[in-house]
Protein backbone atom coordinates (compact mmCIF):
# COMPACT_ATOMS: atom_id res chain seq x y z
CA UNK A 1 0.00 0.00 0.00
CA UNK A 2 1.25 3.47 -0.80
CA UNK A 3 2.59 4.75 2.57
CA UNK A 4 0.33 7.84 2.86
CA UNK A 5 -2.67 5.57 2.42
CA UNK A 6 -2.97 3.70 5.69
CA UNK A 7 -6.04 1.58 5.15
CA UNK A 8 -8.59 0.43 2.66
CA UNK A 9 -12.11 -0.89 2.49
CA UNK A 10 -14.14 -2.28 -0.36
CA UNK A 11 -15.32 0.41 -2.77
CA UNK A 12 -19.11 0.38 -2.64
CA UNK A 13 -21.02 2.17 -5.37
CA UNK A 14 -24.71 2.57 -6.16
CA UNK A 15 -25.59 1.56 -2.61
CA UNK A 16 -29.35 1.44 -2.12
CA UNK A 17 -30.34 2.66 1.34
CA UNK A 18 -33.99 3.45 1.87
CA UNK A 19 -34.99 6.34 -0.36
CA UNK A 20 -31.35 7.19 -1.04
CA UNK A 21 -29.00 5.84 -3.68
CA UNK A 22 -25.41 6.43 -2.60
CA UNK A 23 -23.20 6.74 -5.68
CA UNK A 24 -20.05 6.19 -3.64
CA UNK A 25 -20.42 5.04 -0.05
CA UNK A 26 -18.01 4.69 2.85
CA UNK A 27 -18.42 2.29 5.75
CA UNK A 28 -17.77 4.34 8.86
CA UNK A 29 -18.59 5.01 12.50
CA UNK A 30 -20.22 8.33 13.28
CA UNK A 31 -19.71 9.97 16.67
CA UNK A 32 -17.81 8.51 19.57
CA UNK A 33 -18.57 4.85 18.92
CA UNK A 34 -22.23 5.69 18.37
CA UNK A 35 -23.35 4.55 14.93
CA UNK A 36 -21.66 2.20 12.46
CA UNK A 37 -23.22 2.96 9.11
CA UNK A 38 -22.60 3.85 5.48
CA UNK A 39 -22.33 7.44 4.29
CA UNK A 40 -22.29 9.09 0.90
CA UNK A 41 -18.82 10.24 -0.13
CA UNK A 42 -19.33 13.56 -1.87
CA UNK A 43 -16.42 15.90 -2.42
CA UNK A 44 -18.84 18.33 -4.07
CA UNK A 45 -20.77 18.74 -0.84
CA UNK A 46 -19.51 21.73 1.07
CA UNK A 47 -20.10 20.20 4.51
CA UNK A 48 -20.45 16.80 6.03
CA UNK A 49 -24.14 16.36 6.85
CA UNK A 50 -25.71 14.00 9.38
CA UNK A 51 -28.98 12.34 8.48
CA UNK A 52 -31.62 13.78 10.75
CA UNK A 53 -32.84 10.44 12.14
CA UNK A 54 -29.31 9.75 13.33
CA UNK A 55 -28.84 13.24 14.73
CA UNK A 56 -32.11 13.10 16.64
CA UNK A 57 -31.22 9.69 18.05
CA UNK A 58 -27.88 11.07 19.16
CA UNK A 59 -29.70 13.74 21.12
CA UNK A 60 -29.39 16.86 19.00
CA UNK A 61 -32.02 19.38 19.97
CA UNK A 62 -33.97 21.09 17.20
CA UNK A 63 -34.29 24.31 19.17
CA UNK A 64 -30.53 24.82 18.97
CA UNK A 65 -30.24 23.98 15.29
CA UNK A 66 -31.32 27.24 13.73
CA UNK A 67 -28.46 29.65 13.45
CA UNK A 68 -26.97 29.07 9.99
CA UNK A 69 -28.28 28.57 6.48
CA UNK A 70 -26.86 26.09 4.00
CA UNK A 71 -27.51 26.00 0.26
CA UNK A 72 -28.18 22.37 -0.69
CA UNK A 73 -29.59 20.46 -3.62
CA UNK A 74 -32.82 20.36 -1.61
CA UNK A 75 -32.84 24.16 -1.33
CA UNK A 76 -31.89 26.48 1.47
CA UNK A 77 -32.10 24.86 4.89
CA UNK A 78 -31.52 26.11 8.40
CA UNK A 79 -29.31 24.27 10.85
CA UNK A 80 -26.15 24.38 12.89
CA UNK A 81 -22.55 23.32 12.51
CA UNK A 82 -21.30 20.80 15.05
CA UNK A 83 -18.00 19.06 15.70
CA UNK A 84 -18.22 15.29 15.55
CA UNK A 85 -15.94 12.32 15.02
CA UNK A 86 -16.14 10.03 12.02
CA UNK A 87 -14.02 6.93 11.57
CA UNK A 88 -13.38 5.30 8.21
CA UNK A 89 -13.32 1.55 8.85
CA UNK A 90 -10.58 -0.46 7.22
CA UNK A 91 -10.72 -4.09 6.28
CA UNK A 92 -6.98 -3.96 5.66
CA UNK A 93 -4.49 -1.61 7.28
CA UNK A 94 -5.52 1.11 9.72
CA UNK A 95 -8.74 3.05 10.24
CA UNK A 96 -8.68 6.82 9.90
CA UNK A 97 -10.32 8.85 12.64
CA UNK A 98 -11.43 12.34 11.61
CA UNK A 99 -12.37 15.12 13.97
CA UNK A 100 -14.88 16.54 11.54
CA UNK A 101 -17.52 19.24 11.20
CA UNK A 102 -21.09 18.35 10.32
CA UNK A 103 -24.05 20.46 9.33
CA UNK A 104 -27.09 19.24 11.21
CA UNK A 105 -30.65 20.18 10.45
CA UNK A 106 -34.06 18.64 11.05
CA UNK A 107 -34.91 19.88 7.55
CA UNK A 108 -32.21 17.79 5.81
CA UNK A 109 -34.02 15.01 3.90
CA UNK A 110 -30.90 13.35 2.54
CA UNK A 111 -28.50 10.68 3.78
CA UNK A 112 -25.41 11.12 5.91
CA UNK A 113 -22.74 12.75 3.75
CA UNK A 114 -18.98 12.90 4.08
CA UNK A 115 -18.35 16.21 2.39
CA UNK A 116 -15.41 18.41 1.76
CA UNK A 117 -15.35 21.16 4.38
CA UNK A 118 -14.54 19.93 7.81
CA UNK A 119 -14.12 16.39 6.52
CA UNK A 120 -12.42 15.15 3.40
CA UNK A 121 -10.37 18.33 2.93
CA UNK A 122 -7.73 16.89 5.26
CA UNK A 123 -7.92 13.19 4.37
CA UNK A 124 -6.02 11.37 1.68
CA UNK A 125 -8.43 9.25 -0.29
CA UNK A 126 -8.10 7.28 -3.48
CA UNK A 127 -10.55 5.19 -5.44
CA UNK A 128 -9.72 2.11 -7.44
CA UNK A 129 -12.85 1.25 -9.42
CA UNK A 130 -11.08 -1.59 -11.21
CA UNK A 131 -10.08 -3.55 -8.12
CA UNK A 132 -12.94 -2.08 -6.03
CA UNK A 133 -11.02 -0.47 -3.19
CA UNK A 134 -11.44 2.79 -1.33
CA UNK A 135 -8.10 3.83 0.14
CA UNK A 136 -7.61 6.42 2.89
CA UNK A 137 -4.95 7.92 5.09
CA UNK A 138 -4.23 10.85 7.30
CA UNK A 139 -3.06 14.02 5.60
CA UNK A 140 0.17 15.79 6.43
CA UNK A 141 0.14 18.18 9.36
CA UNK A 142 -2.11 21.17 8.76
CA UNK A 143 -0.48 23.90 6.75
Amino acid sequence: MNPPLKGRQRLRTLVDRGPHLLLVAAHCVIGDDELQTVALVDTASEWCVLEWSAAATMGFDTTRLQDTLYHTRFGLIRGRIERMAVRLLATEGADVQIEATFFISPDWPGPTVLGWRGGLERVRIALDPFEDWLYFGEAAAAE
Partner: protein
Amino acid sequence: MAQDVANPAGGDVRSDWDARHAGEPWWGDWVRLRTLIETSRVPEARDLVKELAVKWPDVDHIRHYERALEPPKARAVPRRLGYDPQQDHDWLREHGHDYAGCWVAVHRGRLLAADPDLGRVMELANAEVGPANALITRAPERRPEE
Protein backbone atom coordinates in the same frame (compact mmCIF):
# COMPACT_ATOMS: atom_id res chain seq x y z
CA MET B 1 -25.29 40.81 5.12
CA ALA B 2 -26.74 37.47 6.02
CA GLN B 3 -30.21 38.84 5.47
CA ASP B 4 -29.38 39.04 1.80
CA VAL B 5 -29.15 35.26 1.47
CA ALA B 6 -31.64 34.28 -1.18
CA ASN B 7 -34.36 31.84 -0.28
CA PRO B 8 -35.53 29.97 -3.36
CA ALA B 9 -38.58 28.79 -1.47
CA GLY B 10 -39.52 32.33 -0.49
CA GLY B 11 -40.71 33.34 2.94
CA ASP B 12 -38.80 33.91 6.15
CA VAL B 13 -35.89 31.51 6.38
CA ARG B 14 -34.51 33.11 9.50
CA SER B 15 -35.59 31.78 12.79
CA ASP B 16 -36.83 32.44 16.26
CA TRP B 17 -33.22 32.02 17.25
CA ASP B 18 -32.38 35.19 15.35
CA ALA B 19 -35.20 37.09 16.99
CA ARG B 20 -34.05 36.01 20.43
CA HIS B 21 -30.42 37.01 19.92
CA ALA B 22 -30.52 39.98 17.56
CA GLY B 23 -30.18 42.42 20.45
CA GLU B 24 -27.04 40.86 21.89
CA PRO B 25 -23.87 43.00 21.82
CA TRP B 26 -22.06 40.34 19.76
CA TRP B 27 -24.84 40.07 17.15
CA GLY B 28 -23.18 42.19 14.47
CA ASP B 29 -19.99 40.17 14.69
CA TRP B 30 -21.96 36.94 14.53
CA VAL B 31 -23.76 38.09 11.39
CA ARG B 32 -20.37 38.84 9.78
CA LEU B 33 -19.20 35.35 10.66
CA ARG B 34 -22.39 33.67 9.56
CA THR B 35 -22.32 35.49 6.24
CA LEU B 36 -18.86 34.10 5.52
CA ILE B 37 -20.01 30.58 6.39
CA GLU B 38 -23.15 30.83 4.28
CA THR B 39 -21.28 32.14 1.25
CA SER B 40 -18.64 29.41 1.27
CA ARG B 41 -15.85 31.67 2.50
CA VAL B 42 -14.79 29.23 5.18
CA PRO B 43 -11.06 30.10 5.29
CA GLU B 44 -12.04 33.71 6.02
CA ALA B 45 -14.56 32.51 8.59
CA ARG B 46 -11.86 30.46 10.30
CA ASP B 47 -9.69 33.57 10.59
CA LEU B 48 -12.53 35.78 11.80
CA VAL B 49 -13.79 33.37 14.45
CA LYS B 50 -10.36 33.34 16.08
CA GLU B 51 -10.56 37.13 16.45
CA LEU B 52 -14.12 36.96 17.73
CA ALA B 53 -13.23 34.30 20.30
CA VAL B 54 -10.73 36.76 21.78
CA LYS B 55 -13.18 39.64 21.60
CA TRP B 56 -16.09 37.65 23.10
CA PRO B 57 -14.45 35.06 25.36
CA ASP B 58 -17.60 34.53 27.41
CA VAL B 59 -20.03 34.05 24.53
CA ASP B 60 -20.71 30.32 24.22
CA HIS B 61 -22.07 30.68 20.71
CA ILE B 62 -18.86 32.21 19.40
CA ARG B 63 -16.76 29.64 21.25
CA HIS B 64 -18.86 26.87 19.76
CA TYR B 65 -18.14 28.10 16.25
CA GLU B 66 -14.45 28.60 17.05
CA ARG B 67 -14.25 24.85 17.65
CA ALA B 68 -16.72 23.80 14.96
CA LEU B 69 -14.87 25.69 12.23
CA GLU B 70 -11.45 24.27 13.00
CA PRO B 71 -10.01 22.40 10.04
CA PRO B 72 -10.61 18.67 10.41
CA LYS B 73 -7.93 16.56 12.02
CA ALA B 74 -7.34 13.06 10.70
CA ARG B 75 -5.13 10.36 12.17
CA ALA B 76 -4.58 6.69 11.56
CA VAL B 77 -5.80 4.46 14.38
CA PRO B 78 -5.83 0.70 14.84
CA ARG B 79 -8.44 -1.15 12.84
CA ARG B 80 -11.71 -1.44 14.72
CA LEU B 81 -13.34 -4.30 12.84
CA GLY B 82 -11.92 -7.73 13.54
CA TYR B 83 -13.77 -9.31 10.64
CA ASP B 84 -14.62 -8.57 7.03
CA PRO B 85 -17.89 -6.59 6.97
CA GLN B 86 -18.56 -7.64 3.40
CA GLN B 87 -20.86 -10.35 4.79
CA ASP B 88 -23.04 -7.58 6.28
CA HIS B 89 -23.21 -5.75 2.96
CA ASP B 90 -23.96 -9.02 1.18
CA TRP B 91 -26.80 -9.71 3.60
CA LEU B 92 -28.26 -6.26 2.96
CA ARG B 93 -28.09 -6.72 -0.78
CA GLU B 94 -29.71 -10.16 -0.68
CA HIS B 95 -32.29 -9.72 2.08
CA GLY B 96 -32.49 -6.04 3.01
CA HIS B 97 -35.40 -5.21 0.71
CA ASP B 98 -37.60 -7.52 2.82
CA TYR B 99 -37.35 -4.83 5.51
CA ALA B 100 -38.02 -1.78 3.32
CA GLY B 101 -39.05 1.19 5.42
CA CYS B 102 -37.03 0.00 8.40
CA TRP B 103 -33.63 0.64 9.85
CA VAL B 104 -31.76 -2.64 10.16
CA ALA B 105 -28.80 -3.78 12.26
CA VAL B 106 -26.59 -6.49 10.79
CA HIS B 107 -23.57 -8.14 12.39
CA ARG B 108 -21.38 -10.85 10.87
CA GLY B 109 -23.98 -11.54 8.23
CA ARG B 110 -26.85 -11.87 10.70
CA LEU B 111 -29.85 -9.59 11.22
CA LEU B 112 -29.99 -8.28 14.79
CA ALA B 113 -32.90 -5.84 14.57
CA ALA B 114 -35.29 -4.17 12.14
CA ASP B 115 -37.63 -1.34 13.01
CA PRO B 116 -38.73 2.01 11.56
CA ASP B 117 -37.34 3.66 14.71
CA LEU B 118 -33.57 4.05 14.50
CA GLY B 119 -33.32 4.52 18.25
CA ARG B 120 -34.99 1.18 18.86
CA VAL B 121 -32.65 -0.57 16.41
CA MET B 122 -29.58 0.97 18.05
CA GLU B 123 -30.86 -0.05 21.46
CA LEU B 124 -31.39 -3.68 20.43
CA ALA B 125 -28.09 -3.92 18.57
CA ASN B 126 -26.13 -2.28 21.37
CA ALA B 127 -27.62 -4.70 23.87
CA GLU B 128 -26.54 -7.67 21.79
CA VAL B 129 -23.12 -6.75 20.44
CA GLY B 130 -22.21 -3.40 22.02
CA PRO B 131 -22.25 0.16 20.65
CA ALA B 132 -21.29 0.64 17.01
CA ASN B 133 -20.45 -3.05 16.57
CA ALA B 134 -23.29 -3.70 14.13
CA LEU B 135 -23.80 -2.07 10.75
CA ILE B 136 -26.97 0.01 11.08
CA THR B 137 -28.53 1.53 8.01
CA ARG B 138 -31.79 2.05 6.20
CA ALA B 139 -32.92 -1.10 4.44
CA PRO B 140 -32.84 -1.02 0.63
CA GLU B 141 -36.17 -0.29 -1.00
CA ARG B 142 -35.45 -1.97 -4.31
CA ARG B 143 -34.89 -5.63 -4.99
CA PRO B 144 -31.48 -6.49 -6.42
CA GLU B 145 -31.37 -7.02 -10.15
CA GLU B 146 -31.39 -10.69 -11.06
